[in-house]
């Protein structure tokens, strides 16, 4: 039986289940995408894997216990998919991690989910404190390596300057979150 047939069978059997899945997936999509981005560090890879993850989640939806958090369940599966990709892509991608390193990341990621939530809250506060122009730069260029040059040209700024600014902003936000959590001194 092919995947398409499998999905079709489920579609015919359980329209309410589909609606429930769509609702849950829409609510968890951002968290899933961020999980993938955290592991992969590459927007296009993450978006590709998001699609595959969605299919897997639907196929395994019967396993999902309604009493649990769908986002946690889905992010766990997404993390596993990302780990597999990291192993597979050792041959042709720049990020090369061993089984051990990937396993360590997974352990920490699973154990620190609440801390990650807290860090996201702090990150929002830190973002809110940035000047408008910095937020504009992040909105226009972050995660889009190919568009930095275009944006820089349109703004009449050297591309290197824009890249440096993005790096500094990322670092500033990272330090800001750590500082708010009392983990480090402000290095900005």
């Amino acid at each position, binding site marked *: 039986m092919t*995947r*398409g047939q499998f*999905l*079709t069978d489920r*579609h015919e059997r359980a329209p309410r289940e*589909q609606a429930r899945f*769509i609702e849950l*997936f*829409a609510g968890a*999509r*951002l968290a899933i*995408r*961020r*999980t*993938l*981005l*955290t592991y992969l*560090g*590459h*927007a296009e890879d*993450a*978006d590709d894997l998001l*699609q595959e993850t*969605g*299919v897997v989640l639907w196929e395994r939806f019967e396993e999902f216990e309604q009493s649990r958090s769908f986002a946690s369940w889905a992010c766990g599966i997404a993390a596993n998919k990302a780990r597999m990709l990291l192993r597979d892509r050792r041959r042709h991608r*720049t*990020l*090369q991690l*061993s089984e*051990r*390193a990937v396993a*360590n990341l997974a*352990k*920490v*990621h699973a154990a620190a989910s609440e801390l*990650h939530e807290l*860090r*996201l809250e702090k*990150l*929002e506060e830190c*973002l*809110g404190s940035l000047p408008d122009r910095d*937020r*504009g730069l*992040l*909105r226009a260029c*972050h*995660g889009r*390596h*190919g*568009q930095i040059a*275009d*944006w820089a*040209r*349109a703004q009449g700024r050297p591309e290197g300057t824009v890249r440096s600014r993005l790096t500094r902003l*990322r*670092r500033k*936000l*990272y330090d800001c*979150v750590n500082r708010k959590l009392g983990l480090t001194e402000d290095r900005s």
Partner: protein
Amino acid sequence: MNGSSGSLAPRPEDVRRVESLAEAVCEGRLSADAAADLDRLLAGDLTLCQVYLNYMQVFAALTAPDESVAGLSETDRGLPLRRATRRLPRVVAFAAAACGLVAIFGGSFAAILLRKPPAVATVQALSEDAEVRSSDFGIGTLVRPDERVRIEAGVVTFRGEAGTTVDVRGPATVSWSGDNRLKLITGRLRAVVPPPAVGFTVLTERAEVVDLGTEFVVEHRLEEDTRVGVRSGRVDAYALDTSGYRLRVASLVAGQSAVFDRAAEIYDAETAELGDWFDRRVGRLRSLSGAARLAAETPEDVTAGGTVTRSHVLVIPERRGVVLDRPLVVGAGDRARTLPAGTPLRSYLVHFDPHLVNARAPKGTLRFAGPIAAVAADASSLDATDEPFGLSETAYGGSTERGLEDGDDATATADGRVLKFNLEIDLGSHVRVDQVRVLTFEET
């Protein structure tokens, strides 16, 4: 201490190193040596893993912003179509989520979950070397709005809902939208637009090409310039800024080409070789069905055993624009046709040679853009048409028995543009192949 069990107090310099390496990952500039260093650090200390994940979390949150986060409400990361969704009002958040689901899942899955949005294109033909990143992709596959189709190799021919035929040469990534538009994310294509589909638009990072009734080619590579060439008719091609807004326009007519660079400047360009490639390798085939594939490359030898096909016929585009200086009779008996002198003709060889291998008998149809002028299905007609229509780099005939036998069938259907074939297997023969040469008028 840095032990494999994980320490709560890694060395400060290791923390700084991991942060620096995480930044390199974010910037996409991690060298192999740096990656090995990162691997060593992460494999050896769980606390450093936490540092790494913390850093990458910032990257992830900025790349996938939450609409509730101050000032980072633009979530679309696509090509210039994003201008249609910029500054999305919060009141349509639910609808946006549903649309996002379509974009994320692509074709079949989204179709099932969201009650199958109508297909906007159909796969009409594949070359024998076509590789598409999808488990169940083939002739007849329906393409849903915004479904991303990744073609790793070969040629895929689509037909848009309004009738546009688009040949895409891999490696390429395209997605169709439901408004007579196609996004060329990367790759090369040829579009042939019939009158009902005028206005068909191809969108790249750099340009928006609006057809005004024509045939044109487009080439685009990610982060590079876009080349546009018009084979016939006219297009308006707009240079886009980084937000996808039109900045300037070039009206191109037959024989003209232009390149659109990242500064939205437009220059003259040369695209003849791109159009020629499609003409040579795809010809004017509109669609295949059943057991038929377009040849991946021009075969050197189509005598028995020279180009083996297992369970499908191979369609080999041959010479084009051939003008006979005297009429030529093709076929015999009731099927005899006289090819006129002075009229441009185009040729395709349909070739089937399982060569002693147990194969399935192929059947299917081939649809051509131009009307079929004659079908050479017997050995003498094939031999007689080798010289004017065959390719100079291909070996034909020789001692090979060619043509169709009793039980084989290849005939033009009533509308004159479709060849229907149903061939039998010639068991045990190592000197014969089933071949048909289809001669069409060049379409006007």
